[in-house]
């Protein structure tokens, strides 16, 4: 069984990896990776203007799960009410960049 002590150590490791403020390109690349499996077909190119729940096949719960992955990748938390406002890939990237800058 994992103990709280182990958990703290794991988190510190993650924090070292994520301490640097990412570039916009890095954030976009990660979002595109996370969303790739939700494309209607493989030829679809995910762009800044892609409307996440309209242009892709993804429900609101899956969006929230994807957001959790991005949160851990960039070591930020995106509150649920903020998530609800995000429509496009650009808006998601902006939100992450804003939060990482404030960290």
């Amino acid at each position, binding site marked *: 069984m994992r103990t709280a002590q182990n958990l703290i150590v794991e988190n510190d490791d993650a924090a070292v990896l994520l301490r640097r403020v990412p570039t916009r390109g890095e954030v976009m690349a990660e979002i595109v990776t996370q969303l790739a499996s939700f494309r209607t077909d493989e030829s679809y190119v995910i762009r800044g203007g892609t409307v996440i729940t309209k242009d892709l096949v993804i429900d609101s719960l899956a969006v929230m*799960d994807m957001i959790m992955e991005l949160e851990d990748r960039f070591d930020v938390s995106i509150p649920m009410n903020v998530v609800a406002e995000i429509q496009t890939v650009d808006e998601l990237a902006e939100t992450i960049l804003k939060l990482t800058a404030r960290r």
Partner: protein
Amino acid sequence: MGLFDRHAGLLDAYRDVRTTGADPFQIRMERVLSPTEAIINGKKCLTVGTNNYFGLTFDPSCMEAAIEAIRAEGTGTTGSRIANGSYSEHVALEREIAEFYGKKHCMVFTTGYQANLGVISTLVGAEDFLLIDADSHASIYDACKQTQAEVVRFKHNDPSSLDARLRRIGDKPGNRLVVLEGIYSMLGDSAPLKEFVDVCKKYGAYVLVDEAHALGALGEHGRGLCEAAGVLDDCHFIVGTFSKTLGAIGGYCVSNDPDFDILRVTTRAYMFTASLPPSIVASVRQALRVVKARPELRKQLWDNVHTLYDGLVAQGFKLGPEYGPVVGVHLPDRMTAIGFWRAMLDAGIYVNVAVPPATPNGVSLLRCSLCAVHTKEQLEHVIEVMTGIGRQMGVLAPKLKVVGSGR
């Protein structure tokens, strides 16, 4: 644009479901015969999906208590406790639940849904932080919509994911409230509560545990996961329901906080709805006595859990991650789940079917829940029927046959 146009996707999905010839969301129990049997579609069916963990819905002492209460105090209270006042039985029930947990205060709600909705949304407000497990019940998600606190989800049953999110809040002012569930209702798994509590202590966060499915089932005295994990004193708020093990309807929250009772005049889900009728209060009080007096029901329940869980695993079914009074059977997709559910019903066994968007990670499940009074024979029959349907539908590999002569 019509009012219902935005539900087009759901309407399509629902239409698919109904093509199987039976609508699992409008099932009619023509007559309920006992905690484990009902007449459905004119046929006597075994019920294995009712959350009736101790089978107390037909307990003679609980039934008598309810009948007596109706004769003494009538059928309903016709108003909220704020407007119409509390009956002395409401107050007695609250005292008994508080005592059951060894806590100082208890508030009773008209449903478990309202208990979560009301308590969670009122405990935190602007500038506060509410952290919820990703697989939380709808009542917890709905509470999130009613609070001005900043809401963040953490990965299901993952204390390190909660740790990261509490750490990121940093030294911002505001209270932190973490919401967990004793037993999760879809897959029957429990939170690693001790580990979660350690993380909460590290960051000074309050802990609220919803024991809806764990009351009676877990802990030496049936107090739930908080008792089983030895952290009753570390959990600031415990929420639960009367609609499962206690066989009626209603919800509650217990706490040691000296100012807890202020929630009675701030929680809208408590203030603006009618209070529980005398019959319910009476049967719940009696059911709680039965839970305390008959620990063997807990043992019977767990024996049944092991029979069903082990039996289904042995046949090759993919189940939830651990033993629990809820046994979730994974099926590949929504239509297979609905078809399987229908075939079970045709064979005289009622279980629940759970499909997206009501399930975590988009999984499709047959959801079974055990009752202490299910017999071993009944459960072996369930396993046999499920195995037959599983093979027929290709969910399970076909039975190994003796290999014939080579080609």
